[in-house]
């Protein structure tokens, strides 16, 4: 079985069927499929057979984990790093406020996605992994270790946002759309695809990202101690900086192991690409929210 990285439709057969599906969609001028072709294959039109061979090359890999890391670094940290990552090197008050308002909604979905993954498998190491993740992201540990969500709210409050305002402000449309895609993937597809959609995204704050070829990190580590951001912001960023290495890399090992076991490597790759597209829009929504707050 193959899965389309744009519309997520299941296709019987192999790569030729996948290539023909995408080729047909571009002939119908479908924007989503053309965007995928532009980003992963080429901007220049070819004949169908050449196109299919190029599609096969996109998915070729010796290690799924390395393939995911490579695609993620290329998209968010490559020649043109994402505007949100650039803004985070020396973040302004409004970039961080935009982060707080939109990420609150992201994390609310995150915990539900982790729960959906748990409900879609009987494999205990996966369930334990997701439970640990829910705990650190959403629940925290006792009175001493706040959750990532709590640290996010404190960051927003440190720049003057009211907690109830963060809760009552509706997410921007791109955030809503991304959340609904992640909800669908985690509920209705396999647990491995759900894990791949969510945990590949934790690479964004992985402090080892420079070891994978990125010229910059998620933020300039100096901001944690030079007083340019509030101490609540430093606490929030530091927690993610430490946690996401463990979260994302352990998850990628589990994803590789079970995608091979279930023979769904290509569908997992497709879901990772779809999730990255949604994440791209979602990061832009953080910036748009910041601009909206600044111009209020």
């Amino acid at each position: 079985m193959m899965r389309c990285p744009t519309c997520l439709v299941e296709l019987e057969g192999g790569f030729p069927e996948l290539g023909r599906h995408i080729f047909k969609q571009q002939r119908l001028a479908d924007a989503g499929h053309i965007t995928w072709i532009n980003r992963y294959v080429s901007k220049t039109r070819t004949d169908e057979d050449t196109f299919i061979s190029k599609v096969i090359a996109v998915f070729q890999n010796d290690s799924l984990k390395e393939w995911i890391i490579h695609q993620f670094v290329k998209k968010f940290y490559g020649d043109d790093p994402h505007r949100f990552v650039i803004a985070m090197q020396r973040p302004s008050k409004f970039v961080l406020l935009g982060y707080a308002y939109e990420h609150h909604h992201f994390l609310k979905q995150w915990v539900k996605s982790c729960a959906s993954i748990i409900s879609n498998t009987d494999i205990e190491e996966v369930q334990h992994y997701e439970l640990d993740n829910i705990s650190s992201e959403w629940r925290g540990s006792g009175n001493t270790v706040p959750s990532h969500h709590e640290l996010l709210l404190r960051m927003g409050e440190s720049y003057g946002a009211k907690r109830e305002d963060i809760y009552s402000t509706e997410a921007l449309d791109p955030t809503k759309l991304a959340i609904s895609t992640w909800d669908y993937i985690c509920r209705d597809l396999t647990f491995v695809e759900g894990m791949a959609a969510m945990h590949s995204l934790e690479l964004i704050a992985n402090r080892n990202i420079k070891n994978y070829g990125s010229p910059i990190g998620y933020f300039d580590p100096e901001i944690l101690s030079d007083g340019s951001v509030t101490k609540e912001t430093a606490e929030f960023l530091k927690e993610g900086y430490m946690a996401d290495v463990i979260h994302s890399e352990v998850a990628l090992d589990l994803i590789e192991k079970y995608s091979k076991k279930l023979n769904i490597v290509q569908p997992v790759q497709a879901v990772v690409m779809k999730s990255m597209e949604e994440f791209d829009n979602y990061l832009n929504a953080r910036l748009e929210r910041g601009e909206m707050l600044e111009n209020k």
Partner: protein
Amino acid sequence: MCNATWGEYWRDIDGESMLFCCDVCADIFQTMVNKVKENTGWNSIDSVNLVGNYNKGRECSAKNGDEEFKYYFRTYSNGKFITFEKR
């Protein structure tokens, strides 16, 4: 807009039939033209020059006779504008 030679989508913009790869690129171009007109008060645009890409956004200049209007814009992947700024 995206320099792709895939797809084929035609739309009439300002009385001219224009070829795009898809409706999203046509939407972006049409919205951009409307925003330039709103900002300048021009009734028509002779030419536009765009430099950049989806990630960076696009630094542009539009001309109407001897007048020139410089601007920058960025969009979401569905074509919705995030930023449109006069330069």
